[in-house]
């Protein structure tokens, strides 16, 4: 019983922590979760199999994938390794604040999902920021 009690407390703690984050920050965890889920399915792993490789519970993997749980840094490393992602940055979503000045982009294919459009918008913002930083540095 004691164990179950502690577990409930931990969940409560987590819920408290999550109340302090903004919508934009929540989007980071959702995007990270989707990247994990997409990659996991690609490797044809179940949530339980991935959990075993990383050393966490299946419920934690499910929560991370749905963006309900703020992932811990050592879990990010573990997940990247278990998902055979060479560079951790490949699993990380873009900083949400980068999105502002590229909201007006036009896509060649308007049938892409809003989520894909957001991913592409982020990617472009990051690329432009990277080039901007290079110019400023030179």
């Amino acid at each position: 019983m004691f164990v179950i009690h502690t577990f409930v407390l931990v969940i409560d703690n987590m819920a408290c922590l999550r109340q302090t984050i903004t919508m934009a920050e929540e989007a980071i965890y959702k995007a990270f979760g989707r990247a994990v889920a997409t990659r996991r399915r690609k490797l044809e792993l179940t949530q339980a199999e991935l959990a075993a490789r990383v050393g966490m519970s299946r419920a934690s993997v499910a929560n991370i994938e749905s963006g309900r749980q703020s992932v811990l840094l050592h879990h990010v490393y573990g997940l990247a390794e278990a998902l055979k992602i060479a560079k951790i940055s490949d699993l990380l979503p873009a900083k949400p604040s980068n999105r502002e000045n590229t909201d007006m982009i036009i896509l060649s294919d308007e049938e892409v999902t809003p989520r894909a459009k957001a991913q592409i918008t982020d990617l472009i913002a990051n690329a432009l920021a990277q080039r901007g930083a290079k110019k400023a540095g030179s």
Partner: protein
Amino acid sequence: MKADPEKARKAARAIVRDFGVKGAPVPVERIIKSKNIVLQYAPLDEDLSGMAYIKDGVGIIGINALHHPNRQRFSAAHELAHHELHEREIRKAVHVDHGFRMLLRDDVSSQGVEPLEIEANAFASELLMPNEFLMTALRATGLDIEDDAGIEALARKFRVSSSAMRYRLAGRF
């Protein structure tokens, strides 16, 4: 616009030559960077392979980081083709590519593929699997198109997917 895959292959051959590439695998990432294009990897939806765009004079290639590295190489070469051949189009709008879903369609439906994609695939295939290098490799070992292990070994050498290699050998790019 009618597709001109031969023009695309010619452009790819010129790059391989100008870059002084001596053999497989062709360093597509270095070629892209040498052209001052920003190459960016990010997790994208499964059906997206990549994108090409020129914004305020900055050339951008985006690749789905969740795909297999060899598939990423083909996507990168495909997007480079849009920069080399379709500059006008990718200045106007972000060009989004869905990759192999289209390549793996049968002959009848793939006739509906846009000319831009036919050219980009021809370019990418010639860039990563240059005819000259392919002939050298085939002369050394010989190859039966039904020989799966042989095709996989060849694909590994060129660092492309085996389906890309099969398409190339069947002359369908």
